């Protein structure tokens, strides 16, 4: 089995705003192997984007990594100087952002913006070689190379996201952090973009951390899944582990329950009642306890321990008696 490419261990991240401390990540651990596709699933505000930005050390000024470790190919990123991160960002780890409408610089041509990655990380290439590569990459994402001198406002949303993907993958990175790459796009374009990402991922053998709230997308695209809630990973495993419906975390069950089943004649959707807890106070017990139908007294007092079966891990007190002697 291949080595872990990315290992996040017990990561705590907080935002120190003027009026309060917001606890965005509370002890997140996850592993990503080379070439693997990991889906990070959770609702808005669960800390998905914070996690991706922490890996690149691009948190906004108020964000602070309080404790934990992020190791990349065995190197601890949190100890590295900024100069090391400059060589990592865009070269070995690339990121695709949620909103293609705003993530491109409006005053630079798309060709220039893609070539900039080469200028930064491959200064030894000649100008002709760089332009050649940009043309190839544009064609690879389905944009005629003749459009490289056009500006972002001349492209549609789906085309812009293709440009962003071209920009992220031209350096053939080892890891791609895709932060809701299709959320801002309509459904037909979504499928195209995901197919394109799948193709390019295979071509360059890039590992992908796909951040999304769309379980369907994860089931289709990913090898492994981590479910995040209120800054804690509540369940992780292979796609089969999660979608087999066996020993799921109540939150995951709720998420799967939200997908309407067209084979049944139902009028209503099944949302999870309530809202995510206020991130300004750290929960003492399970973060999901307040919304959980199966919550016990213990859930509000103690953080649940991991319950593992093979590749599948759940953090829930419901499985305490199944843990046995371990």
């Amino acid at each position: 089995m291949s080595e872990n490419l990315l290992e996040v261990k017990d990561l705590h991240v907080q935002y120190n705003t003027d009026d309060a401390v917001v606890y965005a990540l509370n002890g997140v651990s996850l592993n990503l192997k080379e070439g693997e596709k990991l889906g990070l699933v959770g609702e808005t505000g669960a800390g998905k984007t914070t996690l991706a930005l922490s890996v690149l050390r691009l948190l906004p000024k108020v964000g602070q990594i309080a404790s934990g470790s992020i190791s990349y190919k065995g190197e601890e990123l949190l100890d590295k100087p900024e100069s090391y991160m400059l060589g990592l960002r865009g070269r070995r780890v690339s990121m695709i952002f949620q909103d293609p409408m705003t993530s491109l610089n409006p005053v630079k041509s798309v060709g220039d913006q893609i070539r900039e990655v080469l200028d930064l990380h491959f200064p030894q290439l000649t100008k002709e070689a760089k332009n050649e590569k940009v043309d190839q990459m544009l064609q690879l994402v389905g944009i005629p190379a003749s459009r490289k001198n056009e500006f972002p406002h001349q492209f549609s949303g789906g085309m812009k996201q293709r440009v962003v993907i071209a920009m992220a993958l031209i350096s053939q990175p080892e890891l791609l952090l895709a932060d809701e790459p299709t959320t801002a796009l309509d459904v037909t374009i979504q499928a195209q973009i995901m197919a394109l990402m799948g193709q390019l991922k295979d071509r360059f053998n890039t590992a992908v951390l796909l951040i999304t709230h769309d379980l369907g997308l994860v089931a289709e695209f990913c090898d492994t899944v981590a479910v995040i809630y209120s800054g804690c990973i509540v369940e992780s495993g292979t796609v089969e582990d999660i979608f087999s419906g066996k020993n799921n975390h109540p939150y995951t069950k709720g998420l799967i329950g939200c997908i309407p089943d067209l084979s049944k004649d139902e009028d209503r959707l099944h949302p999870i009642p309530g809202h995510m807890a206020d991130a300004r106070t750290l929960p003492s017990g399970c973060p999901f306890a307040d919304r959980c139908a199966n919550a016990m007294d213990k859930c509000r007092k103690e953080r649940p321990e991991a319950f593992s079966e093979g590749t599948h891990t759940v953090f829930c007190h419901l499985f305490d008696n199944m843990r046995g002697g371990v």
Partner: protein
Amino acid sequence: MDWLKYALKRLLMLIPVIICVTFILFVILSLAPGDVARMVLGADATAEQIAALNHEMGLDKPLLIRYVSYMLDAVRLDFGTSWTGNFDVLEEFSFRLPYTLLVSTLAICFAIAVGVPLGIASAIKQYSLLDYGCTFVVMLLFSMPAFWLGTMCQIFFCLMLRWLPVSGVGSWTCYILPTIILGANTLASMIRMSRTSMLDVIKMDYIRTARAKGNSQKDVILHHAIRNSLIPVVTQIGINFAGTIGGAVVTENIFAIPGIGSMLINAVKGRDVPVVMGTVIFITVIVGVINLIVDLVCALIDPRIDLAS
């Protein structure tokens, strides 16, 4: 050649603007109380002399006819002669305009050269000593009127320290104080505008994208942020340039610079209609052309601006 077509279109649009401005001004000047012929001839002129002069100057004709005949002359670049000074308006103007344009341009350049870097620096180092210092200077410059600041500087630098000449246009040192005084207001707005604009830009998603590509903080600012943050600043420069030409009226008087500002003041005092009208037409054209240049520069910086539509 889109921009050339656009420029021509904009210059043509100046014509109705000039007609409006001159007509309103002409009406106001005609309605103002007092008899021009009596002012020219003095208190002891007889009624016949006054009537004769009025007839000679065409003042006994109806307002509209006078306006049309003035404009017809103006189109042929005949702006008449001054009623009080007996000089040709166009000739006088072409002598004085270079002084006004020089001082205004120097003032704007000074404000841009000092203000924009300061504004950008204080945005990058937000809440630093530099930032607070700049905010303080901006407040100070905005709240001090040019006539007061100018006089104070004259007393301090010229009379007490004797570093600079008090007034006139004898040497290049004469332009230092007028440039600073006339540019003070624009300097304040340049600092404020570029700071605000830079703060907006560095919050944008594409700045985060630029950092995620591996750009250093310096490269992000130089290659991605500055150009975007300059767009509103350039627009502001256009607005300020028009204001600066107006402000030159005050500054030229303080420092005894023979520009169009001091000519305009004297003309208004003396009810010298040809000089006032002529000056205002020139200023309108100059401001129009400056705004056109600003819009062309904006289009150069921002590809989203389409001059063709």
